[in-house]
């Protein structure tokens, strides 16, 4: 070994020194630093997990909101459709009522017109009868001669005789 230039005592001393330094570094430097690094790593991992959790939670929330929005749109559409249907039905009802009323008014007007026509006819008939009667009353005295009166009286007296006999 001396031929290679290696001093065994020195080597041993160096090995011991190295050992002591390694021990000291390990105890007072490596362990705290490693522990700190582990701690930092754990914190970072924790943070990442929390962020991932928050992201998932946010996504779930967004999904929920989207679902609620869809449901709200569906409900709104249903309400609008229902309102349209009701409006349509009301429209039909109003139209039917209007038709019925129009038909009633027409029927009433027709009846009224018929009544007016009837009354007019009655009036004309009445006037015609009145006129005819007046003409007879006016003309008859000049038409009937004395002998006509006698014949009439004879007939009437006979009728009177029959009437009196029928009473008794």
């Amino acid at each position, binding site marked *: 070994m001396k031929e290679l230039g290696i001093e065994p005592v020195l080597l041993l001393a160096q090995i011991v020194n190295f050992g002591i330094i390694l021990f000291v570094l390990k105890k007072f430097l490596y362990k705290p630093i490693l522990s700190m690094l582990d701690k930092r790593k754990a914190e970072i991992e924790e943070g990442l997990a929390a962020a991932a959790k928050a992201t998932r939670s946010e996504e779930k929330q967004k999904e929920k909101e989207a679902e609620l929005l869809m449901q709200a749109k569906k409900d709104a559409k249903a309400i609008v459709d229902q309102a349209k249907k009701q409006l349509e039905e009301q429209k039909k009802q109003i139209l039917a009522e209007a038709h019925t009323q129009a038909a009633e008014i027409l029927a009433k007007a027709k009846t009224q017109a018929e009544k007016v026509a009837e009354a007019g006819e009655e009036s004309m008939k009445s006037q015609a009868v009145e006129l005819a009667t007046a003409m007879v009353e006016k003309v008859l005295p000049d038409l009937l001669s004395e002998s006509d*009166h*006698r014949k*009439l009286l004879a007939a009437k007296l006979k009728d009177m005789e029959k009437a009196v006999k029928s*009473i008794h």
Partner: protein
Amino acid sequence: MKAIDTTKSAFVTSAVALTASEKKQLEEVLSGSVPGPITYSYQVDADVLGGVKVEVGDLILDSTVASQLKKVKTILEK
């Protein structure tokens, strides 16, 4: 005691004055249906147009042309 007067009054209306025989015929007809004595009152009214009308109390015998014309008018107006 006073006797009750049962004489009835007959009012005869015609368009022309009745002859004596017509009056007699009329009186015979009435005496057959109205009991008791009757006094006759004759009047001429051109408005009856023809025929004769007799009124004795509640009994009215109307055979005038005017009344028949009225009946015809009523029937036509219906």
